[in-house]
């Protein structure tokens, strides 16, 4: 399920940057998180080895996915967990809706799950008249504002405390103009505590599902996933099938990497290992495909399924930091989103692989060593191969390739280009030329290097 946005990344980014002080703030805030990540990584001499182990474990998982899922299901059922399978987002939402109806529950809390965002669960349930309360602080803030999260780990990172204060004043009756994060968090704590205590059903995501035990791990800092899961009589955990890892001991590798990569913490406050429902509780797991098995078959792109959703690639991406998550018009933004979303809907997301300078920083911070920037390059090739590039761009590229393939034409074109820049600058120095909008054109020299070479070296 992916809806066509009515804007491109470049258009949304231009709007975002129009408020330059705010862009600077967004950039600095996320860079600060990147710096914390660097510090945490450097605290472990074995960091690069850990990344390699994690990458290799994940590849083993992808290459044995069928068996691992079968094992996981068997062990989970033996533990008393009910296992459901969903081919796509719609089936995922319907499974959850059916559990809600079967049990006739109304009070539902949900902790952070990017999968439920990907499947648009909230919209689906709202249409059915079911209210769902997001309990992660950042997600609650954006839910009040009827916005999507702009970052998979820091959902409200596009907002300033004044924005949050206004939102809470409106929805929670906090003091107008009180922007103190401590005060605002306390207000949310009180509000959400009531929701937890009253909740009948809790939905959580899954960070890791362990084939050998049939259990799963959920990581949070706030404790909201656990407050919901242990208070409610029904717990539904939703996972994309790629969350599977073979053994519990592999958690040692992943939990060392996850929080350090995400926020620079040595580990999240809570790393909760669920394997059996408590007495009298129902526990469900929904295993979702939604395009993942197709991505598994794309040799160039299957490694994207190694992702553990740490968002290190967001925080390091110089484009993300200066364009904001909403400019990516998808549930998962940032560099990883730009290689996952074309698989979900290539036409709707054909702009995303181009929202990068291919600087490569994303691949370097990735704790599971996904070659993100190389996949961005490869998606560009796929998108043009499918004929999805703009006609003008295709024509320009064709023209350029013809010129550059023929040395004589290239030399003539070069001479003409330099002549034009020198003598008819208005042809390039105008609003039609995006280079010129905020940059001067290079000054045209009187001769090319080749001309100089012929004149000076080959006499």
């Amino acid at each position: 399920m992916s809806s066509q946005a009515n804007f491109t990344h470049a258009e949304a980014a231009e709007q975002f940057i129009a408020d330059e002080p705010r862009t600077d703030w967004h950039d600095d805030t996320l860079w600060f998180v990147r710096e914390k990540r660097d510090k945490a990584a450097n605290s472990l001499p074995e960091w690069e080895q850990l990344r390699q182990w994690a990458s290799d474990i994940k590849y083993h998982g992808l290459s044995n996915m069928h068996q691992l899922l079968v094992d996981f299901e068997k062990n989970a059922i033996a533990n008393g967990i009910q296992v459901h399978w969903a081919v796509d987002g719609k089936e995922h939402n319907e499974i959850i809706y059916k559990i809600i109806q079967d049990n006739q529950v109304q009070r539902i809390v949900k902790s952070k799950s990017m999968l439920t965002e990907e499947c648009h669960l909230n919209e689906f349930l709202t249409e059915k008249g079911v209210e769902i309360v997001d309990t992660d602080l950042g997600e609650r803030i954006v839910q009040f504002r009827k916005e999507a999260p702009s970052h998979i780990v820091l959902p409200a990172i596009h907002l300033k405390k004044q924005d949050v204060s206004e939102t809470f004043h409106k929805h929670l009756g906090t003091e107008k103009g009180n922007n103190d994060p401590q005060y605002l968090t306390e207000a949310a704590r009180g509000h959400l505590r009531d929701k937890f205590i009253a909740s009948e059903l809790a939905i959580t995501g899954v960070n890791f599902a362990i084939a050998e035990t049939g259990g799963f791990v959920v990581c949070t800092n706030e404790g909201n996933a656990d407050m919901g899961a242990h208070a409610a009589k029904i717990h539904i955990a939703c996972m994309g099938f790629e969350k599977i890892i073979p053994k519990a001991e592999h958690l040692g590798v992943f939990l060392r990497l996850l929080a350090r990569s995400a926020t620079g913490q040595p580990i999240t406050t809570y790393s909760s290992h669920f394997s059996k429902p408590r007495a009298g509780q129902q526990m469900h797991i929904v295993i979702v495909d939604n395009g993942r098995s197709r991505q598994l078959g794309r040799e160039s792109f299957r490694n994207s399924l190694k992702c553990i959703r740490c968002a290190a690639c967001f925080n390091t991406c110089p484009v993300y930091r200066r364009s904001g998550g909403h400019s990516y018009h998808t549930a998962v933004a940032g560099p990883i989103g730009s290689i996952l979303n074309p698989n979900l809907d290539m036409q709707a997301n054909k702009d995303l692989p181009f929202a990068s300078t291919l600087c490569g920083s994303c691949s370097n911070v990735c704790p599971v060593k996904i070659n993100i920037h190389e996949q961005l390059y490869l998606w560009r090739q796929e998108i043009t191969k499918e004929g999805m590039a703009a006609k003008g761009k295709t024509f320009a590229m064709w023209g350029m390739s013809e010129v550059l393939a023929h040395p004589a034409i290239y030399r003539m074109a070069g001479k003409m280009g330099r002549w034009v820049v020198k003598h008819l600058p208005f042809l390039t120095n105008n609003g039609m030329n995006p280079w010129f909008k905020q940059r001067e054109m290079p000054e045209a020299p009187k001769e090319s290097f080749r001309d100089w070479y012929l004149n000076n070296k080959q006499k």
Partner: protein
Amino acid sequence: MSARETILAGIMANQPLSQDLPIIDVSAVIQYDSNLSQFKTVLESIGGKAIDISGWFELQNMVQDDLAAGKRVVNAIAEIASIDPALASLEATELATVQRAYLKGGIAVAENGSIWLDETAMVNRLLPFIAEHLVIVIEAKNIVATMHHAYQQVSSFDTGFGMFLAGPSKTADIEQSLVIGAHGARSLLVCIIP
């Protein structure tokens, strides 16, 4: 075909040739001069507090002080007092007013300041999350260097629920300003028995 069959068939058709698991060489990872002092340093850095105690009686005194001050405390440590048999089945509404909970932790991890608690130690799964403040006692000899070492010693999925707990609940969702006490405990005191 059912969704399950469709998904599994798609995966079978598309998964690449099997690649072996890597060998995780635990001897190649970081070691600390003192796991105890590393644990304390990291715990303080993530908002927790560590104190050395000489025996269970100190905890008994803390509980007595709390009770004398009129606080609602819940004890889940058999060594300091008998555990309320009703605790395991208390609901959220009944636990909502717990001001301090006393729990006994298992393995603790020097590299990240976390402590393993399983369902046996929690007695009630909700207790360590819903209590306003937490006191956890650990034994110094149970502190290991890294998560690799920890997983060698804990049977992480045996009791139905377990967790690594690292410090008090926190959030930085508003402008990346760190606030301690999001939804879970507002403070964590770790008492270390030599």
